[in-house]
């Protein structure tokens, strides 16, 4: 009589689920909770405490990108108006999100922790050009989106906690390649 009991058991499960709270998240109004270390395929460029751009235009991220979607135009070195030291700047910085595979390599190689990923996903677009992140949009993302927890130094410290204590992350810009 196993099948007989099983029939009533399934009826019971159906009845129980009838009064359960539905698991659906009403998406446009409510966003589902994400994991602490979640990162999405969108980026932001950061400013330092003086309000100056952190990116020095060293092109490390452009070289390491497997999809070759980062394009940087660097300017020659000039003196920073805040610290007085000579450093490079990025004149133009675009990330083409059409082919980003969220590998995080650009963040790992950044010597200045200038680029981070965001916790908010990028909006779909009606054309391919809508998916290109320009420099203005990347700097606007710093203010408008929730940033991910990790930067290049943060990831390095997670791998090797002693390393961060020996050498503080706020090193001068002049000893970095530009």
């Amino acid at each position, binding site marked *: 009589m196993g099948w007989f009991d099983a029939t009533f058991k399934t009826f019971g499960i159906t009845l129980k689920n009838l009064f359960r709270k539905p698991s659906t998240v009403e998406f446009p109004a409510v966003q589902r909770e994400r994991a602490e270390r979640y990162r999405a395929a969108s980026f932001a460029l950061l400013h330092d405490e003086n309000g100056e751009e952190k990116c020095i235009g060293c092109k490390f991220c452009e070289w390491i990108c497997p999809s070759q979607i980062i394009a940087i135009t660097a300017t020659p070195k000039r003196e920073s108006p805040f610290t007085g030291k000579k450093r490079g700047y990025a004149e133009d910085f675009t990330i083409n999100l059409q082919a980003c595979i969220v590998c995080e390599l650009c963040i790992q190689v950044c010597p200045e922790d200038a680029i981070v990923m965001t916790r908010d*996903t990028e909006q*779909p677009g009606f054309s391919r050009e809508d*998916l290109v992140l320009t420099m203005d949009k990347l700097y606007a993302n710093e203010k408008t989106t929730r940033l991910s927890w990790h930067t290049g130094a943060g990831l390095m410290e997670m791998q090797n906690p002693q390393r961060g204590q020996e050498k503080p992350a706020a090193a001068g810009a002049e000893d970095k390649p530009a």
Partner: protein
Amino acid sequence: MGLESNLTGTFVGTRLSDALNWARKYSLFQYPFVTACCGMEFMSAACSHYDISRFGAEIPRFSPRQADLLFVVGTVSHKLAPVLRKVYDQMCDPKWVVSFGACASSGGFYDNYCTVQGIDTIIPVDVYIPGCPPRPEQVLDALIMLQEKIQREPLEKQA
């Protein structure tokens, strides 16, 4: 049919277009052209946590003749390109195409001898979703954007 060309710009024509578009945008029958790993996220968008049926795109139709929304999910190789084109040609008007994920949008990081560099080289695309793979939220975002686009379509394009 010819009738709608007389109605273009008139009050009746705009009201009719609104009503037609309203009916169309909430009854999208999708054809999932799933070729790669993005299919997992597509399934997740269809499951109960996100529930794509709340936007009226509930039922996947596995015949292109019954579908009016083509989801191209995943990498499309050159050998598969004639198949995709034929599937698109078999769909009845009005029809829309969503390019799902990095590989379908631009070829992704498969910049090689066998991968189509974006499905818009073969078929017209309405909405591009970035991500590798996209979140289900982005899929629903794209669906909402597509619904807005359908609502804006003029009457003469609906013939």
